[in-house]
Structures are given as structure tokens and as C-alpha cells.
């Protein structure tokens, strides 16, 4: 099947569709951006995402509380703030979003690495290969210091093989659990991967990561029925060239953008596209972003950090508080600390606990703009519709379905009806408008895209 056979969306591409694209392929629109992208049409919109201008961070530099610059390698939480800032300000939104995809795909947690420096080095690697070649990315990841610490690649020697990386290489990174490999393959791949080491220097920590051939097992290994004196790069290539990889790659990549699985014909066409390109990432991402399912299928819950970055973009607000780091621990997505090697579990983004984290995030995003009921007394009408349209405008007019509008208006009407005294008539509209901003932010429509 030819690559052109991946279906392409030909329906209307208006503000709502552009908004969905900007949330799924980036971190949401800045004010007016959805309209601009809609004018481009789908093809050019996706092409621009795939081929962005030279990387630039637009807007004021990030600060933590007190206005000091960030220290992402050293200060607690500043790693999170540093990346959140890039999500908010980068003019390469898809590159940044794919960096997040790879962080989840090759989930490495600083809880195990213990070095923000090495986590940031890994982050740079993900960004460099964000829309590049998967084989190059995998080879880079395999020798990445944070990964060598996290999955014990540096402890894997010919005398004492450590299977941790070999297993996850196949189970999580390239093939899927039990999909086309055996326990024997795990053991053999571990042998192929032997040889990495590093030094510990007091005061510096883990340094000098290197391949040491004296630690490498030079014997013959048998992997997927092929035999040879495989090395660590062979171990990576064997996985990628193993046919179950195509399905795993396509399905998993798809799942980051579209919540329902791809139709069989689409999956097959994407596999062909991926293989023919020599395992390039960009063509597959481009095809997914133009697929009809993205625009006609159900809404998708925004990952917590995407939601936060998007609120800041909607307000054109820089990262100006360290609060985002601790809030991320409540809303369920602390960058550089995925829960385990399998990454974040999308089905568990939302529960009553993380919902509260999203509420707190919405409050922190909007509180400095909250209207003062004294100062604004009497300045807003006792009119639910008027107040709702102001609250929507606050967030850049995100699309709202009728059922959500009905719920929001129901709140506003009942709250305004409580205003039985003159001071309440003057002040309740202000309180209701502040409340509506919060309710819009946590509404099903604004939490999904």
C-alpha cells in the first residue's frame, strides 16, 4: 500500500479544528492563533508544525518567585519550570510536544537518576531527535547517561549481565510486552549491550560515561533467531528491524494524538510509510495530524502539563512562579519524574485527586487577574450570558458545547439570583465572573481537546 493511502481529513477546517490541532500537536493556541491557523488550511498548518522556523523562545524569560532566573540543573523544581517555559514560549510547538512524547516513551525518572544535569542532557537529546529518525533516537537513548543510570546499563558487564535495559528496550521502547521476543532474547540482548560504565566523583556525582570494550561480551549471541557477535548498536537495530516494531511504533505514536485506535487500513498504511522512510518520525506524525479521526473523533483529555502550559499561553503569561513545580505533583505530571519506566498512564490522568490539582493550577493561572469585588463593584451587569462571554474571553474563547454552556449559565443565573440586596447586586457579578473563569477552566470542554 502506498504512503498516500493514509486517509486525509477534507472536512471544514475552522477555528475549532485548528484549536484541536494546536492542543494536540502543541500546547494550545495563544489568543487569536487558532483563527490564524484556520486560515492556513490543514495542509499548510501541519507542514508549518513539521517545518518550524529556527528555534526561538518568544516572550519574557522565566523566573521563580522573587524574580530570580531559573537554575534548572540545581534548584528543586526548576527543571520542571525550565521545560514548562519552553512549552509556553517555543515557536517550535510540535518539536516541544514530541520531546514530551519521547520523555514518556523512554520514561526516565530523576527519582532514580538523581541528577537534574543528566536529566536535562537527556531532554536535549529528545528535542534534537524530536522529529528525526527513530533509530538514531534509540541509539542516542541507549548511551544516554540518565538512561544508563536509570535502567542499569552501566552495571551491565560480561561478568555480571544486567537485563534491565535489554528487557525494557524490547518491552517498552520498541516491541511491546511479549511481542515477538523471548526470555532468551532478553538474556542475549543484555549480553549485546554490555560494556557501559562511568565513574563517581565526590562532589560531582556520576561522570565520565563511556563504553569500555573490556567489559563487553564478545561472544556470539542469538537474537530473534539471528546470530552474531552483536554490540550495543546492533541490539538497537535488531529491535527496530524486527517486524513487530512497526505495529508497536505506529500504534503507540498514534495514541499520543488520537484516543481511539487507528483503523486497520490506516495502521497498515502508516507502517508502510514508516518503514519506507527508513524509520523517520516526521512523516508518520504528519500523517496522523492530517488524519480524519483527529478532527471527527472524540475529545481527548489534555495531559496536565499541556493544560498548564496552554493556560499560560492563553493568558500570554510567562512562567513567573515556582508554584508550577509543586502543583505538578498534585495534578499528576511532574516533568522528569514519570511514575515508572512505562511513563504516565493516560487512563489515570484524571481522578478526584488530580482533578483538584487541575483546579489549583487553574486558580494559580488566573488568581493574579482575579477581579476585586470592592474595586470592581457595580462595574459588571447582573447578566449570566454577559459574564460567561467575559469568562470565555479570559481564556481566549475556547469552544464550548451547549451542555457545558447550559451548566455554566445555570450556575451564573442561580448565583446572581442570590443578590437580594444592593451591595450584592453590585458585587456578586464580580464574584460570579471570577468563579466562571474557574469553572470554564475545569470544564469538560477546556480540559479536553
Amino acid at each position, binding site marked *: 500500500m502506498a504512503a498516500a493511502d493514509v486517509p486525509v481529513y477534507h472536512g471544514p477546517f475552522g477555528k475549532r479544528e485548528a484549536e484541536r490541532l494546536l492542543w494536540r500537536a502543541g500546547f494550545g493556541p495563544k489568543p487569536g492563533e487558532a483563527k490564524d491557523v484556520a486560515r492556513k488550511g490543514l495542509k499548510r498548518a501541519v507542514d508549518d508544525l513539521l517545518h518550524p522556523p529556527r528555534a526561538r523562545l518568544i516572550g519574557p524569560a522565566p523566573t521563580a518567585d522573587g524574580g530570580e532566573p531559573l537554575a534548572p540543573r540545581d534548584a528543586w523544581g526548576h527543571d520542571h519550570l525550565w521545560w514548562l517555559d519552553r512549552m509556553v514560549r517555543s515557536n517550535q510547538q510540535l518539536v516541544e510536544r514530541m520531546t514530551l512524547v519521547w520523555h514518556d516513551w523512554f520514561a526516565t*525518572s530523576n*527519582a*532514580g*537518576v*538523581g541528577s537534574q544535569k543528566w536529566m536535562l542532557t537527556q531532554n536535549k537529546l529528545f528535542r534534537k531527535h524530536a522529529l528525526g529518525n527513530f533509530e538514531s533516537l534509540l541509539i542516542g537513548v541507549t548511551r544516554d547517561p540518565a538512561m544508563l543510570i*536509570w*535502567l542499569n546499563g552501566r552495571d551491565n558487564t560480561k561478568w555480571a549481565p544486567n537485563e*534491565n535495559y535489554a528487557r*525494557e528496550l524490547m518491552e517498552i521502547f520498541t516491541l511491546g510486552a511479549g511481542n515477538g521476543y523471548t526470555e532468551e532474547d532478553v538474556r542475549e540482548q543484555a549480553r549485546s549491550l554490555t560494556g557501559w560504565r562511568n565513574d563517581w566523583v*565526590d*562532589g560531582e556525582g556520576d561522570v565520565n560515561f563511556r563504553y569500555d570494550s573490556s567489559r563487553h561480551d564478545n561472544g556470539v549471541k542469538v537474537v530473534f533467531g539471528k546470530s552474531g557477535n552483536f554490540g550495543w548498536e546492533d541490539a538497537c537495530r535488531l529491535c527496530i528491524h524486527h517486524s513487530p516494531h512497526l505495529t508497536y511504533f505506529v500504534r503507540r505514536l498514534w495514541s499520543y494524538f488520537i*484516543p481511539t485506535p487507528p483503523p486497520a487500513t490506516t495502521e497498515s498504511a502508516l507502517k508502510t510509510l514508516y518503514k519506507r522512510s527508513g524509520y523517520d518520525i516526521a512523516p508518520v506524525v504528519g500523517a496522523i495530524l492530517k488524519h480524519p479521526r483527529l478532527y471527527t473523533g*472524540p*475529545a*481527548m*483529555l489534555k495531559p496536565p502539563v499541556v493544560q498548564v502550559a496552554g493556560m499560560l499561553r492563553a493568558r500570554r503569561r510567562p512562567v513567573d512562579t515556582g508554584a508550577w513545580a509543586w502543583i505538578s*505533583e498534585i495534578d499528576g505530571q511532574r516533568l522528569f*519524574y514519570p*511514575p*515508572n*519506566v512505562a511513563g504516565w498512564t493516560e487512563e*489515570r490522568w*484524571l*481522578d*478526584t*485527586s488530580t*482533578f*483538584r490539582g487541575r*483546579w489549583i493550577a487553574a*486558580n494559580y493561572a*488566573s*488568581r493574579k487577574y*482575579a*477581579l*476585586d*469585588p470592592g474595586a470592581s463593584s457595580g462595574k459588571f451587569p447582573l447578566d449570566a450570558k454577559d459574564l460567561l462571554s467575559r469568562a470565555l474571553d479570559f481564556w481566549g474563547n475556547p469552544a464550548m*458545547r451547549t*451542555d*457545558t454552556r447550559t*451548566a*455554566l449559565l*445555570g*450556575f451564573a443565573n*442561580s*448565583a446572581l439570583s*442570590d443578590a437580594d440586596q444592593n451591595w450584592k447586586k453590585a458585587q*456578586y457579578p*464580580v*464574584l*460570579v465572573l*471570577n*468563579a466562571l473563569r*474557574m*469553572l470554564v477552566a*475545569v*470544564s*469538560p*470542554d477546556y*480540559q*479536553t481537546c
Partner: protein
Amino acid sequence: MSCACNEFSRSSLLRRSVAEAGRGLPVVEAGMPLPAGSGLSRRTFLARTAGLALSVYGASKLPLGLFEEGIARAAAPTDPILVSIFLDGGADSLSMLYPAGDAQYAGLRPTLALAPEAGLPFAEDTALHWHPSLAPLAELHGEGKVSVLPAVGYTNADQSHFTSRHYWEVGATDAHLRTGWLGRYLDVAGTADNPLQGLALSDSLQPSLASANVPIAAVSQVDDYDFWAQNVWGEPEVRMLDAIGSFTSSDAGRGQVAEVAAQVARLRAQLQPFDDGNWGSPVPYPASSDPFPARLAGLAAMIAAGLPLRCVTVSAPGMYDTHADQATDFGSALALTADSLEAFQRDLEARGLADRVIVHVWSEFGRRGEENGSHGTDHGAAGIGFLIGSQVKGQMLGEFPGLASGLDDEGNLKATFDFRSLYCSLLEQWFGTDAEAIIPNAASLDHPAILK
């Protein structure tokens, strides 16, 4: 009390990782044990009947409904409860219960020795005096509610924070044991559907609770479920909080949000009694920015509410790795700890619950007899511990070995009581379970009487 050693910081980092990391935990230095509980999966639950946002460990396949039913069913308002209070960093026992007037003490501690008149004498051994900040414990001791372990530890003490704490947590001098001693008790006595049986009052799991089979939980504060919005108050706020539950959607993705939002609104209403401290305490607790007193106050309220708790862990305020300028913050952290513990005891007494609870205070080791050149103390061996509660015997467990003959070759206090003996006694006499099933080589250890 600045200047925690590097190893201590790394150790703390690893401890945090227990709660979060799955496979691939770090190897910081060869030979260092991984924290107990490594590899337990975490899942966040909301226990509506219990009213808590819980991080639950080791219950990945436990459905929410079953969990809630389990909590309801497991409630046994007569079960004994053990509260484990950890002094992080290796607390200086020679300041907490100090050999007042001993010339050798003054010589070893030229800047840190406390004057004899500074603290109250310890009634069971008047050569020792209580640190002035521990006056509340002295008072409870006078009422027969405190058993002191003046030199508790183990032979050949490991001076790594990490390793020694690990030993205390797993209840054995075994670097490879991965379950906590309380966790193993819960594996025997607990149930598969009650995470509250092992509760860490913190943001993450405490390794001594790490179990092999049954779920356990972590919650920061009992009243940590408010939905605050800037400049929204009064009637509109009440309407807003209700409105969180008013969203509906038939669309799959949006419907999920609407459904959770509805749960949130219900839960928030159910938790109102605990919100903003409205649950109240019959006695005053110290006011502090540190969560410790509020956590203990919340714990007493949870016990009073009949929640099915068995083992609870809390970290005491302060950081006890006092390598430098020990006198600066040591006393205030200790005072907040002791004042809070006394308030907790009085709270339980006022609620008629004091017979159900024993508090165990411990630290991973004591500190060197001789102070160092930075007005601090380095890592030692035996340290101090306390059992607090209406049911405890109120008599010393082990004795103070004295400085003349009680220091080892490195100048550290020798243990006169093995922490594993204490665990055996707690398991058998307090929990009524067979210690041999939980503590390795329990038969070879003394099991002294610890209850009245």
C-alpha cells in the same frame, strides 16, 4: 543545624524515589541497600467513606469500589495502633537525655554540653537530665506513660544514614530485605482491601510500611481537599462548588471529565467536616508552619472517626543530621516534636482513645560522643528512643551505659538494647502476633515486657 552531609542528601533523594520509581532504582554507591518498598506500584485512590485522597501502594489491581467497601468493612474501632515517629538524620541522644555533671561529658562537648540545671532530672537515673525541650516527655514520664530507651541500636552499627535507617525500617541488619517490618506485620494481620491499615502521613510511602501483599497508603493531611478560588466567597462560592458537579456530556472524552467532576463535588461535600480544620481537636496543638502537629491532630480525629488504622508513620519536624552549629535549631525542632506528642497524648486521653495507641519515637543512630570542630556532632552508633502511651510500662528499656565505659573504639555510644527486641515485644505484646513470622531470628532476641 546546617550542613547535612552529602550522603544524607542522597539518602533523602533515594527515599523519595521509593514512592515513585518502578524498576530501575538507583544504585548510589555499591553495597548500599535499596529502600524497602522499591518497586511497589502506586495508584491514587479516593476513599470517600474515609474522606481521604490517598496514594495507595501495591494495590494496582484493586478496584476502587472494593477498596471503599474494604475500608467500611475493615473498621475495627478496638484494634491497637502503633504510630512510628521518625527523627530524620540521626538524633543526638547525648543532648536529649544528657549525663549532666559528668566531667567527661563536658570534656567531650566543650561547646554543646548542657548545664546540669538546664533540664529536669530523669527520675529513673538521676545522672541523666532531659533536654529542656523535652519537658513534655518528662511530664508524661512522671505519669508513667513513657518508656525510655537510652541507648538503643545494634552491635557493629553502620554509620551510613542510608544503611542504618534501612535496617531499622526492615527490622533486620539485612541490606537486601525489601519489605518493612510494619509492612510484614500488615501482610500477616491486614487485609487486601484496606490501605488505611498502613498509613504514611506524608506525601509518599515510608519504607517501614512497605508490604509484600497488602495495600498501604499515603496522605499528606486529613483536611487536604479544599477547592479555593481567588476572590470568590459567600453565596457565589457555595454555588460554584456545587457547580463543579453540574457538568454533563455524552461525549466519551468530555464525559470522563464530567463524571470525575461530579465525584469531586460529592467528595468535597463529604469531606467538609475535615475541611479547614473544622474537625477540631479537644486540646490545643502547637501552632507551626511544619505539618507535624496538624498531622497528629488529624490522626487523632481519624482514629476517633473509627477509621481502620493499624500502623501509622509520621516524620518529626527538624533535621537531626547536626554536623555543624547543632545548638542553632536542635532545641526548637525538638520542642515542637515533644509539644506535639504531648498534645497528641492529651487529645487521645480526652477522646477516651489513649489505650488504643502507642507512639514509638526513633532515629537511625545517635551521634559521636565527642563534638566535632564545627560545633556539631558526627554520626554515632546507639541512639535514643521512646515509647509513649497510656499502656506502656513506663520503665527504661536498657540502660545508659555511661561515658566512662559505654563508648566504643570510635567514641560512639554502645547499644544496651537491640531495636529488634523492641520490635518483637511490640509485635507480640501490643499486636498479639507471632514475632518470629516477622522479625528474622526473633527467637534469638530478648522480648522484654513493654506494657503495664
